[in-house]
């Protein structure tokens, strides 16, 4: 993967589509656009997939998403099912099941209501009451009141997945520029003109804003008002342990989410770290780690003897309603947004890539995305 273009500064790379952001959304869009045989240039300020795409929990889940996300999430599920065909490796993806725990009766009612709603979107969930829960998963502790199981949800290794999508896009002919922050970007009425930190210039007919936590800033340059703030999810990982948890675990309220990878480490998220938008500036927060670990061991007591070997954080973009920004710009023709996934973008990303490519090809998406329109912020600002 090239760190920078070999073109001397001053020359312009002409392309059909320029994409700002080499994370999962940007690279899956690039891959899909290459299938349409359009030329693509991806500009990534750091390394492809090293931001939210690479440091997130790795949950590949439909369960728990708002109704407006389920069509997109179901579409993504089909892509995950044939992942190896798409990107040439499985990235440790496993459809292990996702179990969402209830702590009490109120939580259980929430799961019951969600199950009903989800069924209308073709998502089948199984409710488990305490006896059945402990019989099937004896490693779950007594504080668990019940649970909702989505048998085909699962998890994957975000570092491998993000890198694999980038590689697949490049092998398909996308031009990836890394260490390539966009310094200038504008629209001249017909074309988008971009210039990166190395003086390389790109001219394109379409521009995809897939810049994650930086999405608001890029959108703003074209007059699209967006409400987005950077959040820093707090993550921990244990030493490798004997197999114990055979599915991805969550809890109503989100105090923790945990999964055990094949090598045995338990990856755990919960709470917030600290940071800013500079690359490599995020820091986990000890109190968040402590709280998440305490919540986890309440539900999985056997883990109390494990050793924590690392904590980390990363940058994700969050919107006030927790929904991403997907779809055409309100101001600039040819500009499309795909960012702001508020901590839940990993599973959706491959479908978002397809949708963005559809928007380029046909001007409309076959999957409903109205709830994610950038226009919803303009209404607020009016």
């Amino acid at each position, binding site marked *: 993967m090239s760190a920078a273009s070999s073109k001397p500064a001053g020359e312009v790379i002409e392309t059909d589509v320029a994409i700002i952001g080499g994370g999962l959304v940007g690279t899956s869009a690039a891959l899909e656009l290459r299938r349409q045989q359009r030329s693509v240039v991806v500009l990534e300020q750091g390394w492809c997939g090293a931001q939210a795409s690479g440091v997130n929990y790795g949950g590949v889940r439909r369960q728990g998403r708002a109704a407006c996300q389920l069509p997109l999430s179901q579409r993504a599920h089909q892509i995950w099912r044939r992942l190896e065909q798409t990107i040439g490796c499985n990235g440790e993806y496993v459809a292990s099941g996702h179990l969402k725990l209830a702590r009490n009766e109120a939580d259980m009612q929430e799961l019951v209501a969600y199950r009903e709603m989800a069924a209308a979107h073709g998502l089948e969930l199984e409710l488990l009451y305490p006896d059945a829960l402990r019989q099937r998963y004896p490693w779950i502790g007594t504080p668990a009141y019940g649970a909702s199981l989505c048998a085909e949800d699962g998890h994957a290794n975000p570092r491998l997945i993000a890198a694999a999508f980038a590689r697949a896009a490049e092998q398909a002919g996308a031009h990836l520029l890394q260490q390539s922050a966009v310094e200038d970007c504008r629209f001249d009425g017909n074309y988008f003109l971009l210039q990166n930190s190395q003086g390389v210039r790109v001219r394109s007919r379409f521009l995809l804003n897939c810049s994650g936590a930086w999405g608001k800033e890029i959108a703003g340059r074209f007059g699209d008002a967006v409400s987005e703030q950077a959040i820093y999810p707090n993550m921990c990982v244990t*030493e*490798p*342990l*004997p197999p114990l948890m055979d599915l991805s675990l969550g809890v109503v309220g989100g105090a923790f989410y945990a999964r055990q990878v094949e*090598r*045995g480490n338990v990856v755990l998220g919960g709470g917030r770290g600290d940071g800013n938008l500079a690359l490599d500036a995020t820091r986990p927060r000890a109190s968040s780690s402590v709280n998440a670990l305490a919540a986890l061991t309440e539900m999985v007591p*056997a883990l109390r*003897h*494990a*050793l924590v070997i690392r904590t980390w954080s990363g940058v994700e973009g969050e919107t006030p309603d927790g929904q991403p920004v997907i779809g055409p710009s309100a101001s600039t023709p040819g500009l499309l947004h795909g960012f702001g996934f508020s901590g839940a973008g990993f599973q959706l990303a491959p479908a978002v890539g397809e949708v963005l490519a559809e928007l380029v090809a046909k001007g409309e998406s076959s999957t409903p995305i109205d709830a994610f329109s950038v226009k919803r912020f303009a209404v607020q600002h009016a």
Partner: protein
Amino acid sequence: MSLLKRVAELERQRVSFWLDGKALNALVGDSVLTAVLTHTDQLRRTEFSGAPRAGFCLIGCCQDCWMRSEDGVAVRACTTEIEEGMRLLSGRMPAAEREHA
């Protein structure tokens, strides 16, 4: 065969402990690592290849000497003092270890 040989400080009180279910003796002030390696040549097995390990740096840096007690507690052998009645596992008994871990 043992990896450590005592050459000094032999006049200390005995401490009895268990390794893989076998009763052994150490001396007060021994680290767990010393207690075990004056008898044998393994502290643990790696999770991936199952290769035997017996520590490396002895000052708590390399993290290669973590053992487990029979009740599942993790013990860093070189920086933990041996205590009377400790029941340790070295990875030589895979079935028992899985049961107790």
